């Protein structure tokens, strides 16, 4: 029965969970959002700093399970430093993976550590956990673009 579990809790995920990257809230930022998973109560407060079309920083304070925490950590690795467009398309790719019910083959070149979440797609109840911080990031990014327009 651990095989099933191991496909969910990949080592990479547990590593990010124990040592999350880019955690904490930092200045400067253009937009801060607060997202909740109503089913379980997991929460994330997330800030985005964008300059000249590039995601300069994403900082966050999150309470939640291993999947949602690790996902926030991996997300920041993937988007920080990227042009907003490119980061958005990584987001799309991650979304597709999560909604694929385990049928989508992840592209390591694009998703890097994010491929570890392929197993999550087979656990419908956990998909929301993996997406919480990504949704918050997308929302905050949209707002900061409006802000700076």
């Amino acid at each position, binding site marked *: *029965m651990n095989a*099933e*579990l191991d496909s969910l*809790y990949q080592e990479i995920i547990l590593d990010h969970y124990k040592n999350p990257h880019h955690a904490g809230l930092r200045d400067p930022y253009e937009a801060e959002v607060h997202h909740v998973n109503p089913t*379980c*109560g997991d929460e994330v407060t997330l800030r985005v700093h964008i300059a000249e079309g590039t995601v300069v920083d994403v900082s966050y304070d999150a309470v939640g399970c291993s*999947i949602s925490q690790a996902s926030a950590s991996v997300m920041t690795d993937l988007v920080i430093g990227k042009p907003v467009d490119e980061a958005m398309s990584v987001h799309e790719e991650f979304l597709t993976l999560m909604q694929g019910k385990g049928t989508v083959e992840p592209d390591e070149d694009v998703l890097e550590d994010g491929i570890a979440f392929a197993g999550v797609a087979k656990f419908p109840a956990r998909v929301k956990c993996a997406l919480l911080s990504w949704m918050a990031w997308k929302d905050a990014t949209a707002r900061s673009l409006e802000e700076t327009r």
Partner: protein
Amino acid sequence: MTLPGLLPELEVIRKDFPILERTLAGGMPLVYLDSANTSQKPQCVIDAMVDHLERHNANVARAMHQLGAESSEAFENARDVVARFIGAPSRDEVIFTKNASEALNLVANTLAWATGDLAIGEGDEVVITEMEHHSNIVPWQLLTERKGATLRWFGLTESGELDLADIDSLITERTKVVSLTWVSNMLGTINPVKEIARRAHEVGAIVVVDASQAAPQLPVDVTEVDADVLVFTGHKVVGPTGIGVLWGKRSLLEQLPPFLGGGEMIETVRMERSTYAGIPHKFEAGTPPIVEAVGLGAALEYLAAIGLDNIHRHEQAITAYALDGLATIPGLRVLGPLDAARRGGAVAFEMDGVHPHDIAQVLDSRGVAVRAGHHCAKPAHARFGVQSSTRMSSYLYTTPAEIDALVEGLEHTRAYFKVG
């Protein structure tokens, strides 16, 4: 293994519940410890519903033909069964709703439109508690916000009981309604409903008792507990979804304005104006949950045949055993009273270093079904400074061996997440 207080025929009872024979992924047998969320259904309930659908289905009240008479009789018989189950002085005081949430909203919503004595406005207060299910919080927030009244609440002690220290300053002449849960779905606490009702009645307030968690496991007598309104939900008392019960004192129900309009709740309808039927029909607009009432009736008769006293003893025995087992897990903290004799069978806990989602996931991989999250009781979680918790909840079919499976599962979880 056996414990004092366990239902003697436990293995026979388990055979009544077909789902308990299920195996899950990896061939794991089901260990269902999520009964406070929804209970499983015995064969007799399923069979009663099937028999109704296959042989007696018709609309009620309106139909004069033989099927209609059979269906109406089955439906109204369920009302009699409910009335007996809760000791209602009159069957007419028993109203079928879709669930406990609708029943609570019905009261709050009709009070919003009430005139005269019952009208609620500025300066008036509604008192609830910090351990309520969201379904007994939000309706009162909506009511008080919309009418300019004030919502107040009992706080909780460290051990998860109602803090009654300031009851006299909380329930005052301004209090119009006191609404509280009999048994908490998160902390398990059994509240002194009768004592609070006494104080509420002294100031002339209406007492609403949420018996959603009490009805499954305690003998309920509406008069004894001194409620004006008492609600519970079908799916937690081994009945189907789609049905709940609102019991209310006749004088109150007659005074309240109608809730939903249409169908059978009328006396006469003209385009200009309508008049309304007497209780219970006044509050049952449209086609009621007929097959659900049949199922609920069968469910309550099943529970009554086993005996609520016996079920309560069984729950206490299992809960005590579970509390003992949980106490052996390092870093585990139970939220709520630790004395099984003073609580219901829902036990929520935290475990250091592992999030409730992850605990539930590991348990699930071993076939053990528990709930993780806020259990629709966010304020109670906030009170104890936690975001979410893991909750195991037993029922009349739960065995000590299933508790052992839970405890082993928790040990395994700690190992899996390399805690401690």
